[in-house]
């Protein structure tokens, strides 16, 4: 490297050349080094970016005109980048490069001042390689999730209970005569203390609802400020339904016998990245037994039989390719007699329940396809007896089951929506059908309510309005003229949601102002009913399936359905029932997601395995979804991170829980999260990472008798403890949509870094060598040249002076010799 001065290797005589010199010659050849560097380049490129093949004539159309082949992810390889660069070919290449460097340097580059640069570069690279062997050979990296607090509940007559501080977490405590229920109702990570010596400070506040028989109160706990613990109780004041107990009862705590306090939630483990493990335990036990899984693939789907999975409809799917990986019991495995074997692995799938003919229980199911003349299609699977799945297309397509033919009349019955109006002061109560709408006729007149000063007209009605999934309301918008004002009333079928609004719309915003409800007039809305535009009618015989159509302006029409035959609905729309099963068989299998629909950022999060549990001669197969973290139980799991252990019932009556996840290792000492701080840019947190300046986890490790000194782990500022460094990896972001304030946990990256200083020394030495070889060496050479030229000039001048006039010119040193001296 750096065009060193090489020592001349005398050409050896063929007959005297011993075989032992051949490898030395090969490894001291620069060509060997060049070939090895080329191989290293190719290997690295393929492993990192894959192979790129042009698939279009226009090769400048990048990336669409190219096909990327991820070689290392292919079957047979199934390697992460880390594994690819730790595979034997890579190690061999690096070893050969190091060998070439050593042999070449020793044999061909004399250790002279002029060659110090090359020596430094080569030595630096060898040191870097040694450091890397140490570093990567011992590398362990993982993540440790740490919850901020746990609530310790102490009730007289019962053992203390720990309730991890996660919104929604709940538990019960039973004493000899009572049952107490506790639930974390709210967590505010930045609650401002409004009174006392600490007024103005902010604290992590946890509200716990306590149900003690008929008594109910909310206890608020502040992390770091136990002196401010107090209860909130219900009041009769609708404007302030909850009030501080100290103001209502004259004391801060409703029941001083119930002690709630906050404690750290220690984390003992970290989960190793890109690793696999199976966890098992007997139901009821709190400790998992971990069995590492070796040889499990990563990127492709492997299964024994197509009938084990739901294949994507538009692809033939991967060919069956079963696995047979024995998950060896660990030393002292209490469940060593349970044999676990993995027979399938799916990279991206989810458990899906589907129906097919062949069952025994009546549960009519039909698959309906609607096609329009422009080629659009819509498919729906309808289950008549399941209220959540018996309609589609916003209620325009419904599947109903009748036990008797007479029920048809009920279905066909059409009833108009109605308003029940009462004016209490005038003792009026009437029910009027809604027949005219302002939305249909803008000139719809107001209808006076006889005996009162009110009149009304209905702007529009909206039935079956979905507010949130599962929350459906019907509403009538009624304009009301009263004795002193006019307003718009949203009359809902749920009276609690009825609202009065101003009729004036703000010109700029388009908003209507909410008004206090005018209680002089009360309205209830009863939505109308009738058949949906398209209703599939099944029954009373199981084989009978009919279609009832009820389109606006047309009569209700009933016709039989033939499975697989289209029915023309007019306007270019056709309905087709492709499958119908009155008694379907319900099967739950993993549905494989087509590769094109997989989110590549999801990594292994949607992977699952099929494990065979062999015990006492009986075998059970179960699908286990992947878990990022193996928590102790559901109460200890973190928001957004699932916890779904699969239960297997063994022949001897035992119930085993299984979890598929990542290997976990013990931390040098349990760690707790004392505080978590989010620094933001101007304007606070907006929901986007760019508004965040930094995340800071304030942690403590357990020492012999207490929690050690506080360590600040933040982005770009890791901390060291027990041979590992800890860096900020993930956090718990707030979700304003669901009113979730977040910041309840942190996830620390954990990793060792042996040999880093050796690597650094090697790279720095190489840098110095490069500077020496490229910039210092030429100066040295030039000075030597100048010295030689000066010496020669001086010698010539001296000899010229000593030479008698007329004597022949002295013989000059040849140029080659001068160069050699220089």
């Amino acid at each position, binding site marked *: 490297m750096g065009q060193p001065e090489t020592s001349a290797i005398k050409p050896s005589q063929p007959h005297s050349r011993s075989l032992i010199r051949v490898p030395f010659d090969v490894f001291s050849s620069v060509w060997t080094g060049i070939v090895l560097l080329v191989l290293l380049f190719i290997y690295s490129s393929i492993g990192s970016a894959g192979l790129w093949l042009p698939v279009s004539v226009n090769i400048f159309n990048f990336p669409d005109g190219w096909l990327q082949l991820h070689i290392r992810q292919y079957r047979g390889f199934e390697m992460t980048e*880390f594994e690819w660069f730790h595979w034997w070919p890579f190690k061999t290449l690096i070893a050969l490069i190091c060998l070439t460097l050593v042999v070449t340097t020793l044999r061909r580059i004399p250790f002279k001042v002029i060659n110090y640069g090359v020596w430094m570069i080569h030595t630096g690279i060898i040191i870097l390689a040694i450091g890397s062997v140490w570093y990567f050979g011992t590398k362990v*990296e993982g993540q440790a999730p740490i919850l901020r607090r746990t609530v310790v509940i102490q009730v007289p007559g019962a053992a203390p209970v720990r309730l991890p501080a996660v919104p929604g977490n709940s538990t019960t405590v039973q004493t000899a005569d009572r049952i107490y229920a506790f639930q974390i109702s709210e967590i505010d990570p930045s609650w401002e203390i409004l009174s006392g010596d600490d007024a103005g400070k902010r604290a992590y506040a946890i509200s716990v609802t306590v149900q003690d028989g008929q008594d109910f109160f909310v206890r608020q706990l502040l992390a770091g400020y136990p002196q401010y613990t107090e209860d909130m109780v219900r009041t009769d004041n609708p404007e302030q339904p909850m009030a501080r107990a100290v103001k209502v009862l004259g004391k801060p705590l409703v029941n001083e016998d119930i002690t709630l306090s906050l404690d750290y939630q220690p984390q003992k483990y970290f989960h190793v990245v890109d690793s696999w493990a199976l966890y098992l335990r007997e139901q009821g036990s709190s400790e998992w037994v971990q069995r590492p899984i070796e040889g499990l693939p990563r990127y492709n789907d492997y299964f024994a039989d197509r009938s084990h999975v739901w294949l994507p409809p538009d692809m033939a799917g991967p060919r069956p390719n079963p696995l047979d990986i024995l998950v060896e019991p660990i030393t002292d495995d209490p469940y060593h007699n349970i044999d676990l074997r993995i027979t399938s692995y799916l990279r991206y799938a989810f458990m899906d329940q589907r129906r097919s003919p062949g069952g025994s229980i009546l549960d009519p199911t039909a698959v309906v396809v609607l096609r329009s003349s422009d080629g659009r299609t819509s498919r729906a699977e309808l289950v008549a007896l399941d209220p959540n799945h018996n309609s589609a297309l916003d209620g325009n397509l419904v599947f109903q089951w009748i036990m008797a033919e007479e029920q048809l009349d009920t279905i066909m019955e059409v009833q108009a929506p109605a308003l029940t109006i009462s004016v209490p002061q005038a003792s009026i109560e009437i029910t009027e059908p809604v027949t005219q709408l302002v939305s249909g006729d803008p000139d719809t007149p107001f209808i006076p309510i006889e005996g009162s000063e009110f009149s009304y007209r209905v702007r529009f009605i909206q039935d079956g309005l979905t507010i949130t999934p599962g929350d459906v309301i019907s509403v009538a918008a009624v304009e009301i003229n009263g004795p002193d004002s006019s307003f718009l009333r949203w009359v809902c079928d749920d009276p609690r949601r009825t609202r009065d609004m101003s009729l004036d719309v703000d010109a700029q915003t388009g908003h209507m102002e909410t008004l206090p409800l005018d209680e002089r007039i009360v309205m209830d809305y009863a939505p109308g009913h009738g058949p949906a535009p398209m209703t599939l009618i099944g029954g009373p015989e199981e084989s009978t399936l009919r279609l009832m159509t009820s389109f606006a302006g047309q009569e209700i029409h009933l016709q039989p359905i033939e499975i697989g035959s289209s029915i023309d609905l007019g306007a270019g729309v056709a309905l087709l029932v492709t499958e119908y099963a009155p008694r379907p068989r319900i099967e739950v299998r993993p549905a494989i997601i087509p590769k094109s629909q997989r989110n590549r950022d999801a990594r292994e999060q949607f992977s699952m395995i099929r494990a065979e549990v062999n015990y006492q001669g009986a075998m059970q197969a179960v699908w286990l979804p992947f878990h990022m973290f193996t928590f102790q139980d559901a109460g200890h799991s973190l928001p957004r991170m699932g916890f779904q252990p699969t239960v297997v019932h063994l022949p001897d009556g035992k119930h085993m829980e299984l979890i598929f996840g990542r290997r976990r290792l013990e931390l040098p000492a349990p760690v707790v999260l004392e505080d978590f701080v989010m620094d933001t840019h101007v304007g606070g947190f907006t929901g986007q990472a760019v508004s965040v300046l930094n995340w800071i986890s304030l942690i403590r490790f357990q020492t012999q008798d207490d929690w050690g000194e506080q360590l600040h782990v933040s982005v770009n500022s890791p901390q060291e403890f027990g041979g590992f460094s800890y860096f900020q990896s993930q956090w718990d972001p707030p979700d304003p949509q669901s009113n979730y304030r977040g910041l309840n946990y942190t996830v620390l*990256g954990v990793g060792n*870094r042996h040999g880093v200083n050796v690597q650094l020394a090697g790279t720095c030495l190489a840098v110095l060598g490069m500077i020496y070889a490229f*910039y210092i060496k030429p100066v040295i050479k030039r000075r030597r040249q100048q010295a030689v030229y000066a010496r020669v000039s001086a010698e010539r001048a001296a000899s010229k002076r000593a030479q008698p006039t007329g004597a022949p010119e002295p013989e000059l040193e040849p140029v080659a010799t001068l160069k050699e001296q220089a």
Partner: protein
Amino acid sequence: MTQRMLTVCMVTASLFIGLLLFIWVRPAANRPTPPERSQFAQQVDLSPLGSVAVYEQGRLKSFDSFTSSLMKLVSGPHPVAGHPDGFAYLDLMLRPIAYEDADVIYVKNKPMRREIAGVLFRSVAEDLAGAQLGERASAARDVLERRLQEFTKTGLLSSRMLLDPRIQQLLDTRAADLMRTAKSVQQIRTAMAVTHPRWLRDNLQIVPPPGGGLDDPWIAIDQFVLPGAAIDVGDEQVRNQVRLAWASLVQSWQSQDASGVNEAVAQLAGLLPQINRQLYPSGSRSGWPWSFADSRMWPWLVSGSLLAIGLALIAVSLTVRSLVCGVIGGPLAMSVVGLHGVAMTMGRMDMLALESWYFGANNMTWVWMIYLLAVILLVMAVVYRWRTARGLGLSVFALAFGLHTATLLLRWYVSGRWPNTNMFEAVTTAAWFGGCLAVILEIFVRRSPMRSLFALGSAVASMVALMCAHFMPLRLNPGISNKMPVLHDVWLYIHTNVIIFSYILIAMAAVSAFFYVIYRIGGGKADHVNVGGAGAIMLSTPSGESYLSESKSSAGQIFDGATMVLMELAFIMLWTGLVMGAIWADHSWGRPWGWDPKEVFALNTFIVLALLVHVRMKVRDKGLWTALLALAGCGVMLFNWIAINFVIVGLHSYA
């Protein structure tokens, strides 16, 4: 004027005009014909809004900067209906109906354009056939066909057409393909969402929180003026004035009353800072060591820097002597004085107005044209050894580099941080580093035949970089946003700058390598420089002469020498940058090396450079192999910068 100088000027002018025409005319075919702007649009003056701050994702931007980045989401590289961005924003918000059938939504993906056009044409043609309109159907089909042809070229289509159920179904299908088309669908849907008046109103957060602090969110003007809004509105009198001004603006805009709009805009711009003056941005929010906006020091700094660079270049030009001195000195002095004038003018503006000016001037990416002129002149200087061309070339290069420097300083000032945190900044700053190095090297090699080559390499690299920024604003988004949390570290300035410096060195080396290959293709002799360590080329020989003598060196030796000078420097800088990156990664992610694609391909680039050094030792045709491997190194570097960033996602995806 001598005959030679006349020739140089004529050749230069012809080439410059020819290239400009080529570059402008070709994409012009893909530009939409701008509709005639209404009288109202022409009369409206939104310049007072230039000093209004808008809050966006943890950052306070000027109104023009804010609308510039948002309108790019709507119409991509084209102006929305031919309007300036600020006007388009308000017009979309206040007169949405005018845009229902206007072709303003940009579809970036070309195959998707064709697909959408196909579905629309087929379905509308079917509808027309069904309507039995006779000849009118045929005329309507022709109109539609022309419109869709225009769409496939420009990428612009109306919301109404995109909301066609058949198109929506197509988009739904394509959205399911996460690997290939989901991003394109997302881009279309984002564009449509951004044009929604409700979205535009909600995001016009121009009211500082009255009495609030830095952590309090800014308020959308709609929310602020809303009667009974559940927010602290501060001084009721100011709020009423804002309310009236806003209502007047809305009403005047909707009634197309330009004078009313102008009056309301001026009122609003004056009132908004009064709501909370302490939170309103000033020079103190910048990352500069001094508050230049307050002290008016920064224009002096800008012009001082330029003058220093100018003087350095004059020093270079003095070595050329005679006519060239005047040729260089004149324009250089003029450019510095002119720039100082501009800087002083801008110095009287506040920071937001300056930011608006910067975005209004298209981020000054048009400087590529001046670099192009320098390239033409310097190529003639290199190829024909014309001193006149060299003098002119260096002076034009000096002008371009001076403007480039001013751009960089301006961006540094308005963004409050050294510009190297996104692709736009990395590319333009890297090019600027190349310019700095070229200035230094040109001084060193002023007596060597390698002179002008480094300036040429830098001019080519800067021209390409600024052209990319100019013509690909969607890829190289010039918008200024906050840094990702992980980038808040001193290593950002050390590692990133060293790496991008090495990249620009590789690009500059590729220019001289390219010349070497051309020289060989043209039948040039297989020459190379024969010195141990290219640093020696910069030194003089024991006899005081340059290693490459004017009379004895061939063009091959000169090109090879320049390539080696740059490659050896790149070799060290790249390796050092890698080491620095590893140090940063170690203390940021807890590991120095993670085999991330960006890391691997930076290493691969280094391997190519290592190959170059070793191959040069062994092969007979050293010059050619050096040139080819320098070009290969540039290819790998570009792959790392382009493909790895945009296609292969890794830990460095924000870089």
